[in-house]
């Protein structure tokens, strides 16, 4: 389809297709339109003689909510802090291990820890989370239990995380519009870190960020300071309450800096000032802010910090070491789960693969093969 005219064309054509349908069958269903609720677009809209366009920008920009006031128990606070710093530890080690070719790909979280932990803490454990890639913190906070992602029932809300770049995809429009028209309990959390990989926001949208779109879809929205753990928590807590009690979607735009590169495949110095990022990391680091607060409160100190940081590093290194020695799944597993039952043509391919494997006695191949669980040749 052509990009623009095609779209228009297809919509124009729908009425024609209804006509086609009518020609096809004489007994087209008739329903009493008077029984339907009034749906005319002119209902309840007053007439004015003033020719006035709505401005493309609102009179004032949407403010960034920062709330440094939430009181937590020491235990809660330490749990959140530990998760934030564990993320940082994972970032340090796993980013490097990708450079050492020990893992294939990694996305760091530096700068966005409060966005994740603050929102995760505000949710109930049964709420359904659709995470994007920079949400390992949610898994951490929840103890990484995969089945909790799939379970859903009443009194729960659904949470969908995405970046500012994703809002330019047509999926975002579809999701916002469906959520609003179907009146469902969803929290959309947009992590607006200013860059879609390398594309700056000014090339993504000319609106006042993402929060401004809420009104267009008939959806409540709020903007929140993503470097402020408690602000993220409070905004999410309030949003969750409205979502669950009033069955409505809420859009939260978290304004945040991604201190690191987009992923292990990215070098962010190519498109933004690293100096500025370093300055931000020093002045508004979400981890540092929580730590200072905890210090003042007296539930944390340098000694605890040192012990915990070492413990976290040891934990990640130990896991990395252990996982590297676990045998990979059998190579024949690649034919499983394509369909509910393994189709005959896939059984045939599996058999051919095993024959190929058994006939290959090269040393390098056998070394590679030893890293995998062994499979037996399936019956033909």
């Amino acid at each position, binding site marked *: *389809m*052509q990009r623009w005219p*095609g779209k228009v*064309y*297809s*919509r*124009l*054509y*729908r*009425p*024609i*297709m*209804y*006509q*086609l*349908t009518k*020609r*096809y*069958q004489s007994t*087209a*269903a008739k*329903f009493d339109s008077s029984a*339907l609720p009034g749906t005319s677009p002119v209902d309840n809209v007053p007439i004015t003689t003033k020719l006035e366009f709505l401005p493309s920008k609102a009179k004032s920009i949407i403010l960034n909510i920062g709330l440094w006031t939430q009181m937590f128990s020491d235990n809660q606070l330490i749990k959140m802090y530990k998760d934030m710093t564990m993320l940082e530890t994972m970032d340090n080690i796993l980013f490097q291990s990708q450079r050492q070719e020990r893992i294939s790909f990694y996305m760091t979280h530096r700068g966005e820890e409060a966005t994740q932990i603050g929102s995760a803490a505000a949710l109930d454990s049964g709420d359904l989370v659709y995470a994007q890639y920079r949400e390992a913190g949610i898994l951490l906070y929840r103890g990484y239990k*995969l089945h909790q992602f*799939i379970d*859903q029932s009443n009194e729960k809300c659904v949470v969908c995380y995405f970046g500012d770049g994703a809002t330019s995809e*047509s*999926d975002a*429009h*579809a*999701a916002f*519009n*469906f959520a609003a*028209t179907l009146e469902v309990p969803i929290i959309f959390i947009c992590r607006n870190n200013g860059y879609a990989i390398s594309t700056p926001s000014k090339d993504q949208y000319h609106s006042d960020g993402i929060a401004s779109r809420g009104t267009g879809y008939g959806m409540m929205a709020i903007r929140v300071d993503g470097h402020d753990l408690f602000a993220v928590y409070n905004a999410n807590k309030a949003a969750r309450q409205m979502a669950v009690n009033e069955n409505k979607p809420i859009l939260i735009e978290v304004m945040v800096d991604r201190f690191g590169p987009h992923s292990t495949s990215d070098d962010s110095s190519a498109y933004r000032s690293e100096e500025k990022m370093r300055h931000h990391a020093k002045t508004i680091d979400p981890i540092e802010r929580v730590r200072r607060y905890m210090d003042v409160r007296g539930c944390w100190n340098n000694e605890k910090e040192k012990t915990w940081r070492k413990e976290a590093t040891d934990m990640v290194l130990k896991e990395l070491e252990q996982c590297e020695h676990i045998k990979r799944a059998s190579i024949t*597993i690649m034919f*499983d*789960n*394509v*369909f*509910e039952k393994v*189709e*005959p*043509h896939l059984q045939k391919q599996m058999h051919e693969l095993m024959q190929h494997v058994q006939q290959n006695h090269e040393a390098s191949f056998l070394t590679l093969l030893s890293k995998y669980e062994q499979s037996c040749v399936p019956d033909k």
Partner: protein
Amino acid sequence: MNLVNNILKSQSSMEVLRRSFSISPRLLTEKSLTIREAITQAMDEEISRDERVFLIGEEVAQYDGAYKMSKGLWKKHGDKRIVDTPITEMGFAGLATGAAMAGLRPICEFMTFNFSMQAIDHVINSAAKAYYMSAGKVKVPIVFRGPNGAAAGVGAQHSQDYSSWYSQCPGLKVIAPYSAEDCRGLLKAAIRDDDPVVFLENELLYGLHFPLSDEASSTDFVLPIGKGKIEREGKHITLVGYSIGVKICMEAAKELEQSGIQCEVVNLRSLRPLDEDIIKNSVKKTHYLLTVEFGWSQCSIGSEVITRICESDAFDYLDGPPIRVTGADVPLAYAKTLEQNSMPQVANVVKSIKKILNK
């Protein structure tokens, strides 16, 4: 704006009225069913049978569907089971796929498969791959259905056959029914199947009557996915078709009967999995092969069928080159004459058969 729309609408309908449609006369046998009725019945029976099954799409509820495929279903089953959506294919295909992941069994209607291009990311990436990418944890028992291929006078963007597009993708099952029996048996099987299924109907067949056996009328009637059917036995040449292509094959076979040529017509029914055995066995008997489809020739279903035969032991039985009869390799014309002649006609098939057989 309303005024403009109304004008456009009325002009469009006038345009439509001037056009005529080549629909075969109804075969008024004792027990017969149109394709439309067969599909509506199959959905009705499965929605009644399993409370997890629901129909979702544009205008499927009060309006009974743009092609009246869900006639009476909203009145019978209500808002919960027959769900209207905003005009956003990507939205409702994604929503339905999510519902399937969560344990429901949606029937997702595309007003036509031409609009499924708006949602193909969800069909391929979300539905077809989820079971594999979750290591078997997330099943997606969904049926994407709607009319596929060219109708009549709806322009190039709305006249495309998606058979080879979807059947290329592992994780999807693809069905292209021909008769009322096919539609009943295969749609019911698709709804009960745990894998995502693309069910490609054909608008030009919707109003046609087909005889239906007592067995096929039963609410328990299902057909196996992945098995073809010999629609007509013959010994001189194998004609392989699917959907409306089978109709052309049957008409060509009937015409050639008078010249003493007996064609065997294979109705593929399923495009993935493809019933290779039924084609091989037929080719071994007839020694000649011809495929018929309305889609384009490159990477077509016919290409796949012929390749499979050439790669198999049935190749040695061929006494001549296999041939594809397909749609013309151009975006479909709007002009009526050009449009009709861009799609396979009985005469094209008859001529090709005579050429292969040197008759």
